[in-house]
């Protein structure tokens, strides 16, 4: 049975009702959202339901939308069903003040480091993660650099600190 985006959408709506929302399809990938409380349920359903079979976590990353008050941080999961060759994007959002999201690392071993990376860059606090600490940045860092509140400096500025630019 060929799996298509509509089937997935219908299946999810049938199972979770209005808890899954904002279905859309961009460049052939179905994306949808849900509240962060049921992210594990949805991921597990997608994993275990034989007609869906999204057993491969391709990617997990965070996005920061500073303008969406109350849902500034978004965790995006890209899932893949190998045998049906179909991808799926699923995201949950969380407030920047209350960043707890359930970890997917019990379901996918691969989520372990990707969640650490997301924590490192966005400060998403994955609950139940076995080893949630910074991975790419130094442990002493006290902010989350990929949030939009920390902009890169202006490229064209001319008052570059020479010492920082290898001129010192």
């Amino acid at each position, binding site marked *: 049975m060929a799996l298509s985006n509509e089937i997935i959408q219908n299946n999810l709506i049938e199972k979770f009702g209005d808890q899954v929302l904002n279905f859309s399809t*961009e*460049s052939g*990938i179905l*994306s949808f959202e849900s509240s962060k409380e049921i992210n594990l349920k949805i991921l597990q359903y997608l994993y275990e339901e034989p007609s869906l079979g999204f*057993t*491969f*976590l*391709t*990617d997990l*990353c965070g*996005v*920061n939308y500073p303008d969406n008050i109350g849902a500034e941080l978004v965790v*995006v999961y*890209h899932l893949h069903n*190998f045998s049906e*060759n179909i*991808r799926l*994007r699923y995201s949950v959002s969380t407030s920047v003040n209350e960043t707890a999201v359930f970890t997917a690392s019990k379901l*996918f*071993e*691969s989520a*372990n*480091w*990707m969640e650490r*990376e997301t924590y490192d*860059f966005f400060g998403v606090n994955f609950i139940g993660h076995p080893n949630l600490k*910074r*991975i*790419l*940045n*130094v442990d002493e860092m006290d902010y989350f*650099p*990929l949030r939009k509140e920390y902009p*890169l400096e202006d*490229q064209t500025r001319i008052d570059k600190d020479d010492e920082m630019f290898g001129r010192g």
Partner: protein
Amino acid sequence: MEHQTNITLPKGSIEKTTTTLNIGPTHPATHGVFQNIMEVDGERVVSTEQTVGYIHRAFEKLAERRPLYQITPITDRLNYCSSPINNMGWHITCERFLKLDLPKRVDYLRVIIMELARISDHLICNSIVGVDTGAYTGFLYVMQYRELIYEIYEEVCGSRLTTNIGRIGGFERNFTNTAFTKLEKFLNEYPKVLKEFENLFARNRIFMERTKGTGGISAERALNYGFTGPNLRAAGVDYDVRVQQPYSSYQDFDFKVPVGTTGDNYDRFLVRNAEMYESISIIKQAYQKIQEFKGAEAEVYHADVPEYYLPKKEDVYTKMEALIWHFKIIMGEIDLPKGQIYSAVEGGNGELGFYLVSDGGRTPFRLHFRRPCFIYYQAFEELIKGGMLSDAVVTLSSLNLIAGELDA
């Protein structure tokens, strides 16, 4: 010599029966900057903790301030053994996002470059497996042919390692005849050398014993750990982005996907080896297809997309309209459409994905690289637990961990 030390040892460290070894950050086996803190009991590895991040360069943050064309040099530095694939992957992502259609010839040229890059990547990995088992010579034999590949890059883009090859919509210039001559030379000579390299290792009992049954992983675990690319195929899953979701007209080519069974180092070696032969066959097909283009078609090297592809230099010097487009593209003043895309190519190490989110500005709102290395390096502990230290070293190199890709 007496010297004062006030270091208090952690509790139980005197009594512990294992030795802590730091394989890395600089160790001959790591081939890059990352660390493994290994607990070994004699020669057996009890556990290991991998540390990455030593060369983290904040690419994702940098990309948020760069117009699309300036992100290409950033992708160079992900997997620097096969940077053209990264470049092409990024261009393909942009083209898919901007919904540009590319002429077939550009696709085929890209396939040639990407497969060359794949060969150079696999070749390094396999010969490094040889080096790490103690045989250095094979490495230098094949390295001469990586040089040929690099010369082809140089002929096309002017650089060898960090290529910055291609542009959104095509290539920056057409392939010269010299490039094609070098390609022909490569295609003629390389299979022989590869055969020789294979003879040097593949059926040598010492090598087989070193690699067989070490660093193995089952298909289920590999999938759970997010393996992709040759490492996943070595475990027996024939997942290849080129077949599953063809990009750049890969569907036009006839090639096989080599798969192993146990996912051990030997399988990884063999899969990479077989893939190099497949890549050669793909390049041959693509080269043949390119030669079939006639007339004006045979000169096409970019799509006709003035919004994204720079006008010719002569036009810039003389024509006002071209100059305006030139300025607009270089200054990055073209607004991107709103939306998001995930697009993947088959990199040297596996599925190299780009997740691009745009809010309609001139630069990506968020760009995430799915670096295959980063994801499968997590499994390292499981791969080597209970094995010997020497196995760990061979596993490390046969996984083809590239520090640039580990730390975006």
